[in-house]
C-alpha cells in the first residue's frame, strides 16, 4: 500500500475540516505549485522535509538496450530530491524489510 493524493486529501478533510472538494483541490494545488516552481527553474526548499533541486545534465553516450545500437542521450535538466536532516533521521530508524 502506498500513500496517495486521495489519502492526503482524506486526512485534510478529517483533521482540518476542509470539505472533500476543498481537500482534493488543495492537494492538487500543492503539487502543482511545486511543479510550477521547478518548471520555472527555481528549486523548492521545504524545511523539515527536503529540497527539490535542479541539475543540468550534459549530453552523454547511451545505448538502446534491446538492439545495442548507440544513441546519444541529449542534454537535459532533471529534478533531484535531497531529504532534509529531520526526514533522514526519522527514516533511518525504520528497521523493516530491506527493499520495498
Amino acid at each position: 500500500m502506498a500513500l496517495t493524493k486521495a489519502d492526503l486529501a482524506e486526512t485534510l478533510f478529517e483533521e482540518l475540516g476542509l470539505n472533500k472538494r476543498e481537500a482534493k483541490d488543495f492537494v492538487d494545488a500543492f503539487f502543482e505549485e511545486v511543479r510550477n516552481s521547478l518548471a520555472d527553474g527555481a528549486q523548492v526548499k521545504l524545511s523539515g522535509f527536503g529540497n527539490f533541486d535542479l541539475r543540468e545534465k550534459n549530453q552523454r553516450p547511451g545505448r538502446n538496450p534491446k538492439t545495442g545500437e548507440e544513441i546519444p542521450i541529449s542534454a537535459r535538466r532533471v529534478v533531484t530530491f535531497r531529504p532534509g536532516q529531520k526526514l533522514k533521521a526519522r527514516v533511518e530508524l525504520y528497521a523493516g524489510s530491506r527493499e520495498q
Partner: protein
Amino acid sequence: MTKSELIEVLASRQSHLAFKDVELAVKSLLEQMSHALAEGERIEIRGFGSFSLHYRAPRQGRNPKTGASVSLPGKHVPHFKPGKELRERVDLGT
C-alpha cells in the same frame, strides 16, 4: 521557493481558505508524507513522482578526527523518482 513562499502562493490562489488553514494544510501534507516514509510506506503522486526508501548496507566507516575505524549499521534513506509530467515540464523549461 521556500515553504513560506509556497504557503503564500497557495493562500493567494485558494482565496476561499483562511491563511492559517493553508499553513496548517501544508504542514499536514508534509507531516503525512514524512510519517509514511518513517513507517516504510511508499508515496505515489501521479504526475509528480514517487518516494520510497532505499536500503544502505552496513559498512566500516572512519572517525575523520581520530582515524579510528567504526562500524556503521545498515539504514534506510528516502529516495524520490520524478514522474513523467514533472520530468517533461522541468526539461522543457531549459
